[in-house]
């Protein structure tokens, strides 16, 4: 009986224990998660901090430079002080980021062969100048028994040693700083960094490794630094399978010992692979050119105060994605819009991160271009139209819209479509960008070489003065005459007589313009154009159709898809041909985005609302037909054309139309009359009709609405606005 009670009591106790254990486990899991969240938060936060800081850095630098000589000496000193303070702040933030990254387990370790002697030589080069300046002995010793080659993460190991040495040099006013390397039991290696500096009291030995604490509250005031260096170093050492220990007494110097496995256990390298999400959240260094990046951490320049941050912290991300106000900071960059020196040689850099924008601007200057910086999509479009730069470097992640939409709009506008655009972005959208007409795509982090090459590509575009013209004409005599007519010093002409030869020539060379007859021995001009459009590998230059007979409206409509210029042969046609060819070869129309790209695009970028819809466009203007078709078809809508109100009604009779875009000014039956007729029919009462008109007054709008339009858009048509209108009115 008693035994049973005891057993029951024990059972109860056991249950309580198990429960307590579970709770403890849950607690510890929550704690771990909280700690991870904290680190992640810190990591993200540091990025948010860095962006505004970068602009502060640049602006204070500009102030301190006092180029316009408007500041007095005192003020320049203030500006310098602001700059230095910002620099320190940046170092701190970099360290926080580094630490939180390590704590969050988001550090990539790569084990590689690491010979010790070159490592020591590098460290010596780094620290010798400052030690000499402070009058310190700097010694490196590779003890017998130490391995000559390690297998570990070179970058991280160097980061730890640099930090230990930097501290040693910082806290030592006289005497020596030594680094000794020796073997240790269990295939380990030991790095001892000893100094003859101020030393640390025993009760503070642990504190020096804790983040945000230094041995003595006053230390930071005297020596500067963030106090994070050792925390980072110890965390890193532990990731590498080792640890850092400290032996020190006040006044007797310190000795920090890093001990780690000579060969990094594979499990460690594997377990700490950086998760993909993190790699996305934090873009890498944009531009790691020595001395070129303004945001390089302080150790990159000989600073009087060696920060606790390791010099290699520049390998940590230094440019965060800019928040929405990034373009404002960019707007303050002193670019060349007011003082052009290189004539036509102007590059527009579209980049919302001020530091990277400034770096781009510097590089642009180095290549003898003027540079103008835009920090938003809207600015980019406006500046491109206004300044007509000879090339554009375009980021994708912009605060107000995607860089791809900027590219698309630039290529849609006849005034800007010829400008070569090179993408520079952390996002890999190269396929889409090239389809949209970009000349190249450079992935961030962009190396200096990569950027130089991008500018080089623009440069070559600029230099290509010889234009290539393809003439497709089966009459040999006429072909020769055209060659004489169009021949010019800057034009290289290829003449062919058949569809097959034309296709071969197009596959071989890229032409700036093509003149073609419609009647060819092995097929019609339509066949040629359609085959060109279907072939991805064939470039599609602007096409001038030179035809011997007048065309019907349907034939013309069919050709318009591929050719903007159709010439009917006659007494004055050679003159017009010359005009048009000249226009295509030398004017802004020269680099029409290939029709092929438009067609390719049709398969993508569909709009869920408009996809599969049938729009009836009742419009007589070729330009608008062309423009609206090329906007709506890529969105997945099918556009049908009616050339007047009567044709529109006829088309509606056949059914299957989701929406009507109705021009008001049309022959035979105008838009207002057509809309009234539509509304007379009960089955069309709900059909969405949007009126397109050149009239802009409020009562004009009233007239359209009275006639039965659901909405109204004024010419010249803002296609974006029209697409939005169509989305609104598309029946659900």
């Amino acid at each position, binding site marked *: 009986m008693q035994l049973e009670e005891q057993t029951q009591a024990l059972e109860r106790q056991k249950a309580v224990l198990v429960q307590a254990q579970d709770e403890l486990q849950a607690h510890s899991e929550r704690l771990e998660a909280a700690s991870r969240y904290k680190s992640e938060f810190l990591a993200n936060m540091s990025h948010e901090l860095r962006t505004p800081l970068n602009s502060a850095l640049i602006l204070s630098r500009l102030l301190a430079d006092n180029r316009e000589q408007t500041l007095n000496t005192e003020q320049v000193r203030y500006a310098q002080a602001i700059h230095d303070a910002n620099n320190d702040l940046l170092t701190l933030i970099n360290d926080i980021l580094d630490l939180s990254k390590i704590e969050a387990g988001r550090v990539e370790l790569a084990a590689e062969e690491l010979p010790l002697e070159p490592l020591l030589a590098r460290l010596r080069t780094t620290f010798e100048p400052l030690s000499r300046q402070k009058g310190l002995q700097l010694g490196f010793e590779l003890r017998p028994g130490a391995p000559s080659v390690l297998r570990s993460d070179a970058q991280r190991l160097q980061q730890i040693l640099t930090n230990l040495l930097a501290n040693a040099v910082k806290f030592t006013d006289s005497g020596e700083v030594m680094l000794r390397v020796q073997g240790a039991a269990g295939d380990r290696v030991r790095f001892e960094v000893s100094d003859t500096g101020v030393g640390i009291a025993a009760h503070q030995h642990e504190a020096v490794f804790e983040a945000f604490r230094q041995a003595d509250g006053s230390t930071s005031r005297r020596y500067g630094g963030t106090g994070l260096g050792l925390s980072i170093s110890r965390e890193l050492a532990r990731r590498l399978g080792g640890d850092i220990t400290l032996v020190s007494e006040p006044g007797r110097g310190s000795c920090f010992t890093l001990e780690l496995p000579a060969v990094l256990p594979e499990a460690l390298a594997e377990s700490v692979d950086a998760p993909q999400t993190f790699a996305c959240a934090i873009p890498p260094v944009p531009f790691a050119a020595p001395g070129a990046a303004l945001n390089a951490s302080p150790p990159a320049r000989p600073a009087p105060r060696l920060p606790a941050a390791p010099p290699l912290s520049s390998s940590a991300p230094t440019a965060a994605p800019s928040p929405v106000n990034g373009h404002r900071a960019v707007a303050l960059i002193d670019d060349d819009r007011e003082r052009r020196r290189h004539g036509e040689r102007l590059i527009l850099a579209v980049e919302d991160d001020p530091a990277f924008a400034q770096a781009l601007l510097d590089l642009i200057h180095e290549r003898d271009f003027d540079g103008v910086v835009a920090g938003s999509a809207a600015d980019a479009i406006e500046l491109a139209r206004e300044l007509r730069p000879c090339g554009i470097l375009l980021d994708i992640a912009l605060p107000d819209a995607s860089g791809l939409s900027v590219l698309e709009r630039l290529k849609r506008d006849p005034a800007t479509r010829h400008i070569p655009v090179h993408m520079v972005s952390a996002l890999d959208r190269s396929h889409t960008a090239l389809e949209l007409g970009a000349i190249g795509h450079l992935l961030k982090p962009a190396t200096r070489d990569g950027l130089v090459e991008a500018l080089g590509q623009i440069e070559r575009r600029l230099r290509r003065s010889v234009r290539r013209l393809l003439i497709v004409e089966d009459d040999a005599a006429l072909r020769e005459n055209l060659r004489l007519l169009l021949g010019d010093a800057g034009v290289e002409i290829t003449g062919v007589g058949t569809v097959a030869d034309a296709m071969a020539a197009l596959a071989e060379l890229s032409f700036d313009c093509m003149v073609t007859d419609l009647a060819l021995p092995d097929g019609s001009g339509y066949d040629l154009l359609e085959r060109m459009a279907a072939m991805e590998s064939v470039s599609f230059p602007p096409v001038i159709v030179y035809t011997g007979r*007048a065309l019907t409206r349907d034939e013309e409509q069919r050709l318009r898809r591929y050719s903007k210029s159709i010439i009917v042969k006659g007494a004055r046609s050679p003159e017009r041909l010359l*005009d048009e060819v000249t226009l295509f070869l030398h004017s802004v129309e020269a680099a029409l985005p290939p029709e092929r790209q438009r067609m390719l695009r049709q398969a993508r970028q569909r709009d869920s609302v408009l996809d599969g819809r049938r729009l009836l466009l009742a419009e007589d*203007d070729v330009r608008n037909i062309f423009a609206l078709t090329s906007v709506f078809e890529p969105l997945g809508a099918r556009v049908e054309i009616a050339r007047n109100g009567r044709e529109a009604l006829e088309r509606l009779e056949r059914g299957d139309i989701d929406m009507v875009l109705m021009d008001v000014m049309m022959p035979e039956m105008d838009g207002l009359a057509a809309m009234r007729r539509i509304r007379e029919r009960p089955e069309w009462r709900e059909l969405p009709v949007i009126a397109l008109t*050149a009239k802009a*007054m409020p009562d004009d709008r009233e007239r359209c609405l009275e006639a039965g339009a659901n909405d109204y858009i004024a*010419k*010249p048509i803002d296609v974006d606005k029209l697409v939005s209108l169509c989305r609104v009115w598309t029946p659900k």
Partner: protein
Amino acid sequence: MDDETALFDLEVQLLLEAIYRRYQHDFRDYAVTSVRRRMRHAMVHLGCAHLGELQHVLLSDAARFRQALQFFTVQVSEMFRDPPYFCALREQVVPVLRTYPSLKVWVAGCSTGEEAWSLAVLLAEEDLLERSLIYATDINPASLEVAEAGIYPRERMAGFSRSYHDAGGRRSLSDWYTAAYDGARFDPALRRQMVFADHSLATDSVFSEVHLVSCRNVLIYFNRGLQDRALGLFRESLVPRGYLGLGSRETLQFGRHAEAFEPEVAAERIYRRRT
């Protein structure tokens, strides 16, 4: 300028502003001397002793305003006015227009339509009308109605015919119209290729791409700012290397768009868009 005229001008300005706000018809940038004349003209016809009275009538009665519109714009128009202009079009411009598979002509400020019908006849004789479209635009609905009807008093036909021949007409003008009672009605077949529409050079925008703009004796009634606006519309509307015809007393020189055009037949004020 005497005080009375200055005061009159001031009142006119206020009236034009009021008209703009009430009816969105914008005469504020019309040339001062012409507006002064037009207003006096309107006062006489509407029996108003002074401008204040005219203002009251125009603003309070929309129907009277529509009626008065004809006094605000110049209605004088003839067929084949300035025959050498049409000769030049036939000889210099049409051969180039012929190289376009389809073409569009804009008669801006067409008034009662005589110029638009003249161009229709010309293009028909050149065998181009079938593939052409003529936009005839004006701000005055009453004028547009007359223009669209294509019916003109018979007594004007003699003068029109003379000009037609001087302008290089190949046949007889009477081939293109039917006389009935005391009017002459132009061939409805011509009408099929024409669009008559209300369009204001002062407030509206470009509506189509065209190959020839004929806008004669319209700009002289505009001040410089409005002239620039109208020429900007023409420039935007024209295809590269498209043609612009102006009136004999009008010129592109000095304006904001002077550089965008080059003279093609200088004597006849025919210009060509450069690119």
